[in-house]
């Protein structure tokens, strides 16, 4: 604040100073904090193995997959679900039918964010299958829009 007030007619210098001040003032704590709680958000909604988990993304647990134990090729400990939380088991059970991520959260009455982390862990362990959206990521293309349009007309 004081630096900005001291040099009002030099707009170029003010942002430069502001930028320089950032690491000195808050760099340490900010870095520690982000390393602790934000790995999920840093991945932009992708799990470690690149699954995209949007609210409408379908997930399912084929009957053969173990409901309680991590698969043989599961990554080492660390994920929440690998500690066999009852919530993780409930998700696997629910996913004997195909469900969207949002449906899993709603039916288990769990917050969406928590469910996504758990599903991500389960997917990374091979206990849940994450299905592709069936179309390219991003805004739906014309072909998909046309299909939706004709589907709605039949309602």
């Amino acid at each position, binding site marked *: 604040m004081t630096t900005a007030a001291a040099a009002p007619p030099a707009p170029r210098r003010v942002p430069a100073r502001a930028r320089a001040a950032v690491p000195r003032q808050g760099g340490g704590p900010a870095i520690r904090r982000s390393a602790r709680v934000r790995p999920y958000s840093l991945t932009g*909604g992708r799990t470690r193995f690149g699954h995209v988990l*949007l*609210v*409408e*993304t*379908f997930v*399912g*647990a*084929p*009957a053969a997959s173990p409901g309680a134990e991590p698969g043989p090729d599961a990554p080492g400990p660390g994920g929440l679900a690998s500690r066999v939380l009852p919530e993780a088991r409930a998700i696997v059970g629910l996913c*004997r*039918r*195909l*469900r*969207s991520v*949002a*449906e899993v*959260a*709603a*039916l288990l*009455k769990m*917050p*969406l*964010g928590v469910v996504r982390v758990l599903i991500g862990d389960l997917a990374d362990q091979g206990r849940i*299958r994450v*299905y*592709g*959206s*069936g*179309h390219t*990521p*991003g*805004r*739906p*293309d*014309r072909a*998909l*829009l*046309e*299909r*939706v*349009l004709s*589907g*709605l*007309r*039949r*309602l």
Partner: protein
Amino acid sequence: MDYADSDTSPHASAGEEEGAASWQTDLSRAPAATKIVIAGGFGVGKTTFVGSVSEITPLRTEAVMTSAGEGVDDPAEVPGKSTTTVAMDFGRITLEADLVLYLFGTPGQKRFWFMWDDLVRGAIGAVVMVDTRRLTDCFPALDYFESGGLPYVVAVNHFEGTPRHEAEAVREALALAPDVPVLIMDARQRISVVETLLTLVGRALEVSPGLPGAPSVRAGHGVNPA
């Protein structure tokens, strides 16, 4: 939360486990999934809208809200609203055996933008619901979709006993561009909701880039040196 809307679903007595859709039992493949966002202020009829076309009883999923936004606006305006969690009601329509459309009703206040960013990824577009008695409630949603470039239509939910406004008057009041569709509709009527969705998807097609190989707006500029 949006409980005010919840009791008007036409599927009120059915639970979600009312029987699986056929595509739910075949885990070898999944249908294509797409979604439309239903936005608007509290009590504007988002859940009613979703319930009028959903094949399942609208489900509610909740996200814990940080306290950062508390006090920014006034949830006490509509009785029974909580400030600790934000609820999102959604429904589902199986359009084809391998195509499922989700409708997500989302709170229309600025402090919930963290949810919107996530919701609109990959969405066809948004229906911005408007109650003419509380017109300003939809401003944040309009601003958001306008700046984000997501196709949207404005759906004026006509409540009984309120004056019926003309679409053009609403367009003017909301300072909407001439090409943004405005519908006067009734969220309780399935046909009216379907018509609104059709208008939105039509709008999305209008603003969608052309088919691959087809002439598009940008094709003529020839700036690509390759």
